[in-house]
């Protein structure tokens, strides 16, 4: 198993139960990319992702001294903040930027700068496939691949059984495979469902 541990400096500082600015910045540097990627994946809008990422680190700073290593590892705690932040924003109507479904149904797009097109198409293809997953699967895929948490950590966070997490992820990836291959093979998700029922995928 791959383990992700908190930075050693942070762990040392936590031993004396008090952080400092340097520790905080180490954490920022260490986790910015993962937090941003996780949020970007969930909200699918770079501006909103910037906003929420800043919010997560502000929350971290606000509650920094409340973190107690004896109560659990740091990463799930941090990503719980990120996940809460995203979920809270989903509930706010005044954040129309958060629209996963927008990627499932593109009208004819307008022109874009040429150099961005290929990269964007590649990203959009993956995001479009992810958008077809149900909410729970999207949540778990985000926690697994973007937040990079372990199945146990995900299980603790989502109150699911660890093996259940594994099954959901397995099926989510199977669906993603099907979605991504769909254009080339014409194979539909309905067919995947049928095959799964029949014990084949």
């Amino acid at each position: 198993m791959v383990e992700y541990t908190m930075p050693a400096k942070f762990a040392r500082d936590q031993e004396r139960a008090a952080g400092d600015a340097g520790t905080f910045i180490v954490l920022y540097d260490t986790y910015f990319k993962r937090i941003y990627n996780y949020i970007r994946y969930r909200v699918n809008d770079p501006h909103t992702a910037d906003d929420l990422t800043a919010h997560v680190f502000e929350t971290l700073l606000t509650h920094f001294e409340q973190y107690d290593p004896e109560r659990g590892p740091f990463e799930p705690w941090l990503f719980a903040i990120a996940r809460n932040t995203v979920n809270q924003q989903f509930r706010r109507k005044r954040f129309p930027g958060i629209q996963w479904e927008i990627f499932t149904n593109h009208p004819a797009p307008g022109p874009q700068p040429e150099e961005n097109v290929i990269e964007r198409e590649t990203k959009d293809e993956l995001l479009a496939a992810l958008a077809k997953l149900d909410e729970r699967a999207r949540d778990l895929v985000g926690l697994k691949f973007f937040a990079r948490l372990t199945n146990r950590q995900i299980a603790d966070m989502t109150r699911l059984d660890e093996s259940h997490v594994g099954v959901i992820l397995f099926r989510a990836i199977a669906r993603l495979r099907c979605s991504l291959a769909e254009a080339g093979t014409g194979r539909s998700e309905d067919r995947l469902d049928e095959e799964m029922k029949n014990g084949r995928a």
Partner: protein
Amino acid sequence: MDERKWVDRFQNDIDPLRAQEQQPEPEEAPEEYRQMLEVASRLSRADYSQDSRIYASARAKLKDQAEHRLGRRAGRFSLRHSLPMAVRYAGMGICLLGFILGMGWVIERFVPGVIPGKQPSQQVTSGPAIVLEQYMGDPKPIIIDIGGQQQTAAIGSYCWAKERNGTQTTQVCADSFSYPTPADPLVISSPVSARLLSPIPATPERLTMILSRVDEQTDLADRKGTTLYWKFKPGELVYLPLQPEPHFELALETGLYNLIIQASWKELGNVDYGFLVRVDRSLPTGTPIYAPTAPMPTSAVYPTEAPIAGVTSTPAEPEGFYATQQAARQTQIAARATASPFPTALPANLQPGSPASGVTKRGPLSLEVRLAKDEFVAGEGGLAEVTLHNDGPEPLFIDGDGAHFAWATLLDHAGHSPTPWPFSWTRNMLGMPYLLKLEPGQTLTETVQFQIPPAEQKPDSSYDFWVETRFSRPDPLQPEGADNVWLRLECGPIQLKVTPSGDSNQLSVSWTAGRSGWNLTVSGQDGRAPVGPVWGEVGATSGGATTGGPLRLNENGAYAGSWSEGLFMGDAEMLTGGWIAAQGYVTQLFSQTIAGKEVAGIPLPDMSQPGLPQKSFPSLEQAQANTAISIHLLTRLPDGASASGVVVEWSGTDQMNLSQGFQLPGSKWLELTQMVYSQADQYGGWGQAHYDMEAQAVSVNGLEGYFVQHAGWLRLDWKADGMGFELSAPAQSMSLADMIQLAAGLK
């Protein structure tokens, strides 16, 4: 592929992928499994972090704040407070939003402070001191009492104080990925009075309700025992009175509703409480009721214009925030509004010339605008002195961000605002919404800047200049807060004439910047400082730090200033620049780059701020030949109307606006905008009217529509054939009934 066999192996195989190590080579694995590992690998490699614009700037600010907070236990980081507003303005085409996002506190140093005496209206009402420690632990449910029936809330997400150790409180957070509610709905008739009963006697610092109409077939996510789990669904956000046990009125159509109460107490935390109610009978009330599913025509409650014969308001489910915020308010407010509606605005009294002015009044509120002149050269900036006075017996709440309460708008012959130019840190860095309480007899003043488009934008020969402010009455239940029914007071149009600029209108600018500070000198062609005020903004960026903000008004044309101490002491490249404006002169841009070992990191904002990509076609046929969508036509046109071309504008990958212009007699203009949007985007396809605070619900061929008169223009929005449409025309050219007739002829 046998799922049971491969699930465990899959978990082992994807871990190296997540660590971005070498991909495993599964032997004897089916092709499907290999492809799944490919997908997992692709997910593991997906990196969007280069999209972020805030890494360096947020890091610098957080570091500063961490030093304060963790070192000296002082100060609180405020980056977040500047962000949502910036996002709110993203739709304005601000292409450098990412840059702006990280600038919060630096800009705050630059911007003059908030106007003294202004206080946010939604302050916590502090009651008697209550020991809250006994409520720590797990959050306890609240109860809703509706007409004597009670229901205990299901608890959703929360962050709650677990225990206190000395001065330190441990908070525990739990998150629910759906809205839990009790399984058995409270069956009620409507309208009905409701009350929340809380085990905590203290006044919450925030109390809102999200009201969503739900369908068990489509919206239910899960069911466990006596709890239902509902999918997240946008609802109407209602601010409830900040009381320990608030009363409010519900006026709902028949149906099933989630009531999600979000409450937070300062020393305890915040909780989402879920209730489920079923309205089995909705009684006609004979008086206007704010109801989430029955839009209240604005004019019936707050008449802003005379009723228009032949136009019927049809029940429809409003979605837009402004169009529906009234619908979510309480019956008391409606009753008060009906009994004593806020008066209609009087026509503005306008004086052209030098100086030019306008005064208008709506009930006790008067708005006065003064300009030094009404003739400008292309590219010239202007200043307007705005005065707002409350002559009534009760306070009013003025919308704004603490420093600004008035907005200036220029409209061209087609009712369009010019593309913003040049980039303005001040304009784009509006703060959080921050209500000003305007007491009886009190006056507010503000100098509002505006900018005539430069020659490159091919400005019109004249523009209509409007200034507006938005206000709300005190909440009848909580008079120290606003009732959130927002009204507008606008003054205009002051017609500004625009002439081409000449050499004598050009400023001469000397800009010298270093890592510690800058010098700026500005003069006219005669070498003397411009007569009258000079204003502008300067900014700089280097090594992940950035700053920007306004110059202080000055009449001698010479400026000098320092960057924040230590902000640019690194050896990275440094970009500096800004703009300066003076009466009678074309606004001048300037910049200077200081070489460094590394690139600057964050670019300076693009002062030219190009608008959305667009293309013009002289005829409908040519536009159709170059456009994939089917262009809709108006089969009926006003007498004397002549087609005047088509403009296609792309506002992103998911939306396209196609505008057909028509010249009307008397130099008037009619425009039909067809909005193509993603069908999955529930916010897409609506134009300005739908989102206007004073939108009126109307019927267009039996379809949901919204109408508003704003800044002298009528705008009508509706959707048909999976697309959005907006008709706009000057108010003098037609009536709403005329406009609905035109819309009805769309094909």
